[in-house]
């Protein structure tokens, strides 16, 4: 039987303080108010004073309300029963299904021992040439999509999710618009993926603090499946909302901000989530794809900046396409040597020529003379944008490589591409 305390003596922001004894750090409690019951978590202990972060927010809490400590940290049910279900940020059902309490695990569990990880080696195919050819996605990679409001980042996320060959998809929504949630649900359903998906949903209308739990819950469930040998893909959108929630709590707790109001431990807080991505030595894997919207399209803003320092590259979504520059998959070299032996050649050559095209474009806009070479580059760049970069394109890697050769053939003489003779002999299209 857990003790109940009624002496709430401080309410600041979404944090309350209550006099209590025998409380553990990060322990969970239930706060019962006139509006109902909310979960809350201990975030600091000072003598007999316990500070709690209230998931449903502090609005309507009265100093006389009851706080009941549960004797354990935040937990989440795991296992197959979750498949096809939808929950909120605290793990309560949002569909009409039953509340689950099977195989409870603590969220935010300990880190994986580095010696138990293996070097990732399996490519995840997406059908998107800008990813498969130029920045291959690798199983167990952690990769954000850097973007700005208005760009189709959720569409891209859903598309990769539904096309990737994985066993389980977990979607963690943070501050999502309800329409976006419906979009995700419908897309998963259309592709028959709903039955092996789990959704943890925090919408823009839900209390801010609840948003903080979404990555941890999603990843704890993912980890449990991965340990059973499953390949799990975790989609998180939008991590910038998560960071802003962290900022809000930090300010409430009067922490000294380090950079534009964000707490100094933002890096560690993000890293402990992203580092859950893993390829286990003798079990499954977790791959994390996350959306990070960049305030003001500024990549040096603390959110994308700290994210970039943690993740293994990023896809930069701009003007409706994945930008070749600024996008990077740091793990691509682990897989693109064994796909097809022209893969790296096409990747390097096409990007170099595209860089030249961008320079020519700049020269053109400044009114400088266009040489014959410049004209070739302009033709090439347009074909590249239309046939490779456009997100409408959906073809397997091998088709995309063939298409690459065709574009090069349409625009250049073989020697102008700088490609080695031996590869040209093998791959340069013979047609006229």
């Amino acid at each position, binding site marked *: 039987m857990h003790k109940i305390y009624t002496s709430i003596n401080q309410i600041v922001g979404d944090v309350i303080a209550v006099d209590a004894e025998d409380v553990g750090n990060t322990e969970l409690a239930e706060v019962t108010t006139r509006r109902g019951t909310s979960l809350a978590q201990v975030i600091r202990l*000072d003598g007999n004073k316990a500070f709690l972060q209230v998931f449903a927010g502090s609005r309507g809490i009265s100093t006389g309300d009851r706080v009941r400590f549960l004797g354990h940290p935040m937990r989440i049910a795991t296992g197959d029963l979750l498949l096809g279900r939808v929950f909120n940020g605290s793990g309560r059902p949002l569909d009409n299904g039953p509340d689950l309490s099977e195989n409870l695990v603590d969220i935010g*569990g300990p880190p994986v021992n580095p010696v138990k990880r293996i070097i990732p080696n399996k490519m995840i195919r997406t059908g998107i040439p800008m990813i498969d050819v130029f920045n291959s996605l690798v199983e167990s990679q952690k990769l954000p999509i850097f973007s700005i409001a208005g760009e189709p980042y959720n569409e891209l996320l859903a598309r990769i999710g539904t096309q990737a060959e994985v066993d389980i998809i977990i979607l963690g929504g943070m501050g999502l618009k309800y329409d976006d949630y419906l979009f995700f649900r419908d897309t998963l359903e259309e592709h028959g993926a709903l039955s092996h998906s789990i959704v943890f949903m925090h919408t823009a209308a839900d209390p801010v603090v609840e948003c903080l739990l979404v990555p941890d819950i999603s990843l704890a469930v993912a980890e449990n499946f991965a340990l059973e040998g499953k390949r799990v893909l975790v989609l998180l959108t939008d991590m910038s909302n998560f960071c802003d929630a962290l900022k809000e709590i930090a300010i409430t707790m009067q922490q000294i901000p380090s950079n534009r109001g964000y707490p100094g431990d933002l890096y560690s807080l993000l*890293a402990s989530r992203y580092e859950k991505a893993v390829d286990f030595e003798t079990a499954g894997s977790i791959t994390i794809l996350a959306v990070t919207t960049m305030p003001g399209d500024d990549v040096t803003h*603390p959110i994308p900046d700290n994210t970039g320092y943690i993740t293994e590259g990023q896809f930069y979504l701009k003007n409706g396409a994945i930008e070749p520059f600024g996008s990077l998959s740091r793990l691509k070299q682990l897989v693109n040597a064994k796909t097809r032996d022209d893969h790296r050649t096409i990747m390097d050559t096409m990007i170099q020529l595209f860089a030249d095209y961008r320079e020519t474009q700049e020269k053109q806009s400044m009114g400088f003379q266009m040489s014959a070479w410049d004209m070739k580059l302009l033709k090439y760049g347009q074909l590249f944008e239309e046939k490779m970069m456009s997100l409408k394109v959906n073809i397997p890697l091998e088709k995309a490589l063939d298409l690459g050769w065709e574009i090069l053939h349409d625009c250049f003489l073989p020697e102008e591409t700088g490609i080695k003779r031996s590869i040209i002999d093998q791959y340069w299209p013979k047609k006229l």
Partner: protein
Amino acid sequence: MTALSSGRIVRINGNMVTVTFDTPVMQNEVAYIRHGQERLKSEVIRIRGNLAEMQVYEATTGLKIGEEVEFTGELLSIELGPGMLGQIYDGLQNPLPEIAEQCGFFLQRGVYIKALSESKTWDFTPEKKPGDSVRAGDKIGYVEEKIFRHFCMVPFTLTGNYEIISIENAGRFTIRQAVAQIMDQNGKIYPVFLSQTWPVKIPIQAYTERLKPEEPLVTKMRLIDSLFPVSRGGTYCIPGPFGAGKTVLQQLISRHAEVDIVIIAACGERAGEIVETLRTFPSIIDPRTSRPLSDRTVIICNTSSMPVAARESSVYTAVTIAEYYRQMGLHVLLLADSTSRWAQAMREMSGRLEEIPGEEAFPAYLESRIASFYERAGLVRLHDGSLGSVTIGGAVSPAGGNFEEPVTQATLKVVGAFLGLSRSRSDARRYPAIDPLISWSKYRSIIEEGQRERGQGILLKGNDIAQMMKVVGEEGTSLQDYMDFLKAEFFDFVYLQQNAFDPVDEATVKERQIYIFDFIHRIIESEFVFERKDEALHFFQQLRQLFRGWNSISWQSDEFKKTEQEIRAFLLVRTREGKHA
């Protein structure tokens, strides 16, 4: 022995715990928090009245007010002895493979395992005899550890002179068996073991003198050795925005640098990167020793999701191990990636202590901590006259890629070489993305000074002309200027840039660097005859292609000489009066 003191928790804030105590407590003393069956390691970082504030090296989940804390009377220390080479330790020197054996996939808090095997025996050979006089750091014998003579040394903690009373004959010993007894002037006797403990935050200084680092440390990275060199016993830093290539560069250096031992401190960065090192090093054969790289490497890893407080101890543990091997007369290279994560850990703790924050909320003592860390590098002459060195190279991860931030600035004040990576070079895939326009080094290059200056000069000039050309276009640039621009680009492409994925190009030995630099120097000095710019451009494009091919051919092979002749012939055609050859 006096009874050790204990205390009780009164406050918990993240990984900082405040404890009341009533018997004496020492600053930086190690203490264990008792939580049920668990004992969690922590360190006293501030004492006020009868309250000690401690950083906990573990997650503090579940800890309660009133729980007991045992003080140990010891500073945070590690054990130094044979068996460290090839090991993978966490920031507190727990061996991670052994932890995995015991705990499985996950790290379990409160599990601490001895750093060195207590049961393994080592072949000891004595080098001193009874009656010999010794002092701290003196070698009394050795065991074979991998390819090195691992010396057994008089404990560094002892001061003054000692006499050897007895020493074991050659034979097998564990680190727990004394191999000698020594006596001080007052007749007090001390045992000497194959291992000893040392507090990590204090430098080991059992040597005669510190010398100026003058001998180049060849990394086989051309841009570094030729233009921005590092010396044995010196220090350098690699600041750069995310994804610019700091880690790849440090990994290349860890494989190719001409040193005896490499200590890798993975501090607050990705676990995946250290996995690459620990999985590949056992199968990469070091050409100098014909042994796996792992035989001369120690990895200290506190990756970004491991406890934050141990980031600090990971860099100190690493540098202490480096100093220990230096005491044996070895050249040691310590690579830390990234020192910014350690600085951030300091910032987190400072915030919890509610200290007055400095710039970007870093504590006021940031600079002095960074300075005293790099000060532990150095070339030293040992008591027996031999030389040993610790070279430190630290990656720095500036917020927003802006080098004006406090950690980069504090580091630049103390290091001997600055290898600044720039986003524009990494975006253009010009690897290694060390920006020659901003980098500098105080050390001596392997390249003759006049040539080196000329090389750097042409880069500056080429850049100026490139900037101009953006405004006035190619058509507004003189042929002379355009030639200089092409020469600078050529130098950049075939010399500064190095292909990390090409088995030959990834590492260039010193002799080859000197030879090629001289060759390129003469190209830079040559006058070429061209009518038009596109002719010149085409010529240099072809030359670049030839040269890049040359870069992937083994040094001094027949093919190397053949290609050289080809390049010389190609140059002759266009050089005024065949001046180059």
